């Protein structure tokens, strides 16, 4: 969905939204136009606001929103169906015009959704407890037995907090009569709440909050109360709260990282966790730390390979055992997905009176489970309105994930045969006909089908409904085009009150009793990624410097037989780079590895740093297609060098000097020292070309200081002094090793009972040797030995802190 304004003419002229031609679809309720054909009063302020916008105003409004999303890096991942498992990044498909809902309507809806959440909680407790609903014949047993979402190992495990469900979502739409109905229940690991907040920020950038001012309900309170609830579920106040993520390749990874940052809780993957004495522990650089509450965004069946899906490589063996022993609260427990089973919707209306003592206040999409003979007859009788799909499927009605089939596409005989053959494996649902809402399509306001995702969180005072959510907006008038994976958009949902509503945001509040991890509780995997991010960025920089020096020389002297080129080419080749290529694949690969490492750190990385790194990656890939050897390449490489410096500068200037920064910097220094040792060893060897010494000075960015100190003489001794042994030159090996020593002393347990840690001991020996070396003793063999010893320090750091 785009909000592109492409109307030609005077940018200061009022933009024509084509409102005069706005026509709801026949027989379909519309948010903007009431049944009487008049604009609903709720929308008047919005229309008034739009009416005075010039073409330029509108363009700017849309740009403001898009810029916000782009700058914040709001993305989701789209699975590439052709490639199978691969997924690609997509910008968040914002549909700029919000959906406006009247507070009174929302209040009624909220009460009904709370009732439904309570019903689901009771059903969950029964399904994973006494199974009374099956025993008494209210629910067919085969909806559970054989249901892949029913996690048998969870049966009999009562949740420590007393409740199974803590965070649920409902996909709702308006039926032909304008009343809300539930299209799907989302209980497994509902996604999108974070996107709803980002959508809100972006939309208010486009159409300012002043439009409704204090009458617009805010979202932040919902998150604050839910965070307080998560923290309050801890049995051990010293323990941590975390979001369990499948990792960066998941479609909503961005959102998971964002929520962790916004709520101030940890973001962990299965491999970060281990089980010890009935508790879940987080592996940190300072050892194992207890985790007490886990907001699970990983598919439940993957959570524990020991008791759930043994094929899972994302889980933590023993997690179910911790739940069994009451050592953890999980939002929501594995197996919650069973409530999403499509056939459940056929029974929820009947289960409501049994379990809650009341009829459902809000209907769900009419559903027949074909295991029942009377249901099969009903399907036959109304075949033209029915869609058949797998009974145990959990996809949204318009997702097409489960190959729905219109009953009307079969002959009556074929339909009867199909129903009799498949019986309980099938459900029939009434065809979804969604209402429409105005959307901005190519500058015109146009009716588009919509459904709403509404979130409910358990809090100290019971279920809280998010005062908003996000709306899926169809790409066309076809309701099946709602799915984002197929071009649908997402719009903000504004709940408008006739009065002032209170409001606050999470960002502006003092941290208070927040679950922000202590400085020394960096997860080991994050430390590992930071260390390698530092190494890859610095390694890229070394490669760029070497390549630039080579092409600078080609530009000066042509590709003729410069003996020095042999030596640079050998250096390039030993770094895995093809010297014939100005921007070789090996460089792109190294930058790519830096991006991959940074992608794992989205929850603890500044948006600017991430943007700078992505920009570097993009530029390098673009330039690799274009540049020619010689001056052209040298200039392109200089441009890349500046971008690298830009990233390093952002990190250096803006990253808080916590333990994470130490690992990042350790990685950079280690790599920088290694680079320099390798260059000096190869290029200042007495056997090597004499031009190698000048080249080293250039690579070490030390031309100025060298000239000042040694005039024009560039003998080996002064250069080794300057680039290897000088503690004050920020490019010298000694300077890196000194810096690493300072950092390593500040790592957890660097000194225990007056004994240095293993990496600190190894580094101290190296530091001492460098401090007592002279240019004469530090020959090429000694420099290569320094490289090896730096590698050993790196291994010792990994062993001590990243396991």
């Amino acid at each position: 969905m785009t909000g592109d304004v492409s109307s030609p003419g005077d940018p200061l002229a009022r933009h024509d939204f084509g409102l005069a031609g706005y026509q709801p679809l026949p027989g379909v309720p519309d948010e903007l136009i009431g049944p009487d054909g008049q604009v609903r009063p709720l929308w008047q302020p919005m229309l008034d606001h739009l009416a005075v916008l010039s073409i330029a105003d509108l363009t700017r409004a849309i740009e403001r929103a898009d810029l916000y999303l782009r700058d914040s890096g709001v993305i989701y991942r789209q699975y590439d169906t052709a490639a199978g498992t691969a997924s690609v990044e997509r910008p968040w498909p914002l549909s700029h015009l919000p959906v406006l809902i009247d507070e009174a309507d929302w209040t009624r809806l909220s009460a009904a959704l709370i009732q439904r959440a309570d019903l689901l909680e009771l059903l969950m407790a029964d399904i994973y407890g006494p199974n009374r609903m099956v025993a008494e014949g209210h629910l067919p047993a085969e909806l559970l037995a054989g249901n892949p979402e029913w996690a048998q190992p969870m049966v009999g495990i009562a949740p420590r907090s007393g409740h199974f469900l803590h965070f649920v979502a409902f996909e709702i739409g308006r039926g032909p009569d304008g009343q809300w109905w539930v299209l799907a229940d989302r209980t497994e690991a509902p996604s999108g709440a974070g996107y709803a907040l980002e959508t809100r920020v972006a939309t208010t950038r486009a159409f300012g909050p002043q439009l409704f001012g204090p009458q617009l309900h805010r979202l932040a309170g919902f998150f604050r109360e839910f965070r307080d609830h998560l923290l309050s579920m801890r049995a051990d106040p010293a323990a941590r709260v975390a979001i369990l993520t499948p990792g960066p390749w998941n479609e909503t990874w961005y959102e998971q990282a964002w929520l962790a940052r916004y709520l101030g809780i940890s973001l962990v993957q299965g491999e970060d966790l281990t089980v010890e004495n009935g508790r879940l522990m987080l592996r940190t650089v300072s050892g194992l730390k207890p985790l007490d509450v886990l907001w699970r965004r990983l598919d439940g069946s993957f959570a524990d390979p020991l008791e759930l899906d043994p094929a899972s490589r994302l889980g933590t063996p023993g997690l179910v055992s911790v739940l069994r022993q009451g050592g953890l609260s999980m939002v929501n427990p594995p197996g919650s997905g069973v409530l999403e089973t499509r056939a459940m919707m056929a029974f929820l209306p009947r289960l409501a009176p049994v379990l809650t003592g009341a009829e459902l206040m809000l209907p769900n999409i009419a559903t027949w489970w074909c295991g029942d003979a009377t249901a099969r007859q009903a399907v036959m009788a109304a075949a033209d309105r029915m869609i058949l799909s797998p009974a145990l499927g959990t996809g949204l009605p318009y997702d097409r994930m489960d190959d729905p089939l219109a009953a009307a596409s079969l002959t009556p005989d074929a339909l009867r045969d199909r129903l009799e053959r498949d019986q309980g494996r099938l459900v029939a649902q009434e065809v979804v006909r969604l209402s429409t809402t105005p959307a901005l399509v190519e500058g015109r306001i146009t009716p588009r089908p919509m459904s709403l995702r509404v979130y409910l969180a358990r809090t100290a005072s019971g279920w809280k409904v998010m005062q908003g959510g996000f709306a899926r907006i169809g790409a066309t008038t076809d309701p099946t085009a709602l799915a984002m994976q197929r071009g649908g958009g997402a719009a903000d949902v504004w709940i408008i009150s006739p009065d002032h509503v209170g409001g606050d945001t999470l960002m502006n509040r003092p941290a208070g009793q927040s679950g922000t991890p202590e400085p020394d509780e960096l997860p080991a995997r994050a430390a590992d990624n930071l260390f390698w991010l530092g190494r890859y960025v610095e390694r890229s920089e070394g490669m760029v410097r070497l390549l630039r020096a080579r092409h600078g020389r080609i530009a000066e002297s042509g590709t003729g037989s410069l003996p020095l080129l042999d030596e640079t080419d050998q250096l390039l080749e030993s770094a895995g780079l093809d010297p014939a290529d100005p921007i070789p694949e090996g460089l792109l690969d190294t930058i790519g590895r830096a991006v991959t490492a940074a992608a794992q750190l989205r929850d603890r990385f500044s948006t600017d740093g991430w943007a700078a790194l992505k920009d570097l990656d993009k530029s390098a890939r673009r330039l690799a297609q274009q540049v020619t050897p010689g001056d052209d390449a040298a200039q392109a490489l200089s441009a890349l060098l500046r971008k690298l410096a830009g990233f390093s500068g952002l990190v250096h200037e803006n990253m808080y000097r916590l333990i994470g920064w130490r690992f990042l910097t350790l990685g950079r220094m280690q790599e920088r020292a290694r680079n320099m040792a390798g260059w000096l060893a190869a290029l200042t060897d007495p056997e090597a070309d004499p031009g190698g010494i000048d080249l080293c000075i250039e690579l070490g960015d030390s031309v100025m200081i060298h000239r000042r100190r040694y005039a024009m003489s560039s003998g080996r001794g002064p250069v080794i002094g300057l680039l290897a042994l000088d503690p004050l030159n920020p490019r010298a090996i000694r300077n890196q090793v000194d810096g690493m020593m300072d950092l390593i002393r500040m790592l957890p347990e660097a000194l225990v009972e007056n004994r240095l840690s293993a990496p600190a001991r190894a580094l101290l020996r190296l530091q001492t040797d460098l401090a007592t070396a002279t240019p004469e003793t530090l020959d090429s063999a000694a420099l290569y030995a320094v490289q090896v010893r730096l590698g050993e320090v790196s291994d010792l750091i990994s062993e001590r802190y990243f396991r």
Partner: protein
Amino acid sequence: MSLYNLRLQISYEFDRPSGAGRQHFRILPATLPGRQRLLGSLVTLEPEPGELGFFTDFFGTAVVEAAIPAGLTRLELRLEAEVERLAEPEGLDLSMPVSQLGPEIAQCRSLGPTSPLHYHLPSRRIPEVGAISDFAAGALRPGDSVAVVTERLGLMLHDHMRFETGATDVDTSPAEAFAARHGVCQDFAQIMVGGLRSLGIPAGYVAGYLRTLPPPGQKRLVGADAMHAWVRAWGGSQRGWIDYDPTNACFTGADHIDVGMGRDYGDVAPVTGMLRLDGQQEGRHSVDITEAGEG
């Protein structure tokens, strides 16, 4: 009634020190009213595990849970148990005709561990296999009871398959073993479970033990020196479950000691977790069962 002393030993040797991990062991004989009673048991691990616990899983099997510390070069588990096995009276065949099972299953409202509802559909390790279904169809004659069909299929399978250790491993699929026509008790049992299910008979995979030495005058049973597996077919709500050992082509008797039943090997595997019990690793196990007083 027979009284047995059971000794199981599972040992691992590692080339390199192992990492830390969690293990589940499903090795304890079950207590089944009217059939079998576990009188006492002792599980020891060497070196001592970080943690040792017990729980009963969804299918009613007792599980020993252990946290294995890192850095081991060997691990040994020993079980000593005393089990009472009651011989079941051989009576009339009360199992239902196979053709009448469908409605019986549909009326079932239990989701307990032995509900037939868990056992009539394909499972993770026993998917539907055309060749096995076709083979099993040959065991069904109109009007036959579950017990009759079970025995006929078991005899057919016993003729079709050759017992051979080492030719298959724990991950060999029923389809592969069936096509190769050889395997061990796990393969025999999984193929037969798949065949029974294809006929509409709920069937489970039973893990257990077999007494080592036969009573005087009887033949030694195959598979007695290792953990054993057989099948359990559901004969309707009145008859309940019927045990059959396809490896030895017989209904089970006082020689068979139950550990547990699941949908397939995966639900009752003796060792799950970081370590497993297959030929690839250094895991070895031995079983010794003697009648009390035998020595």
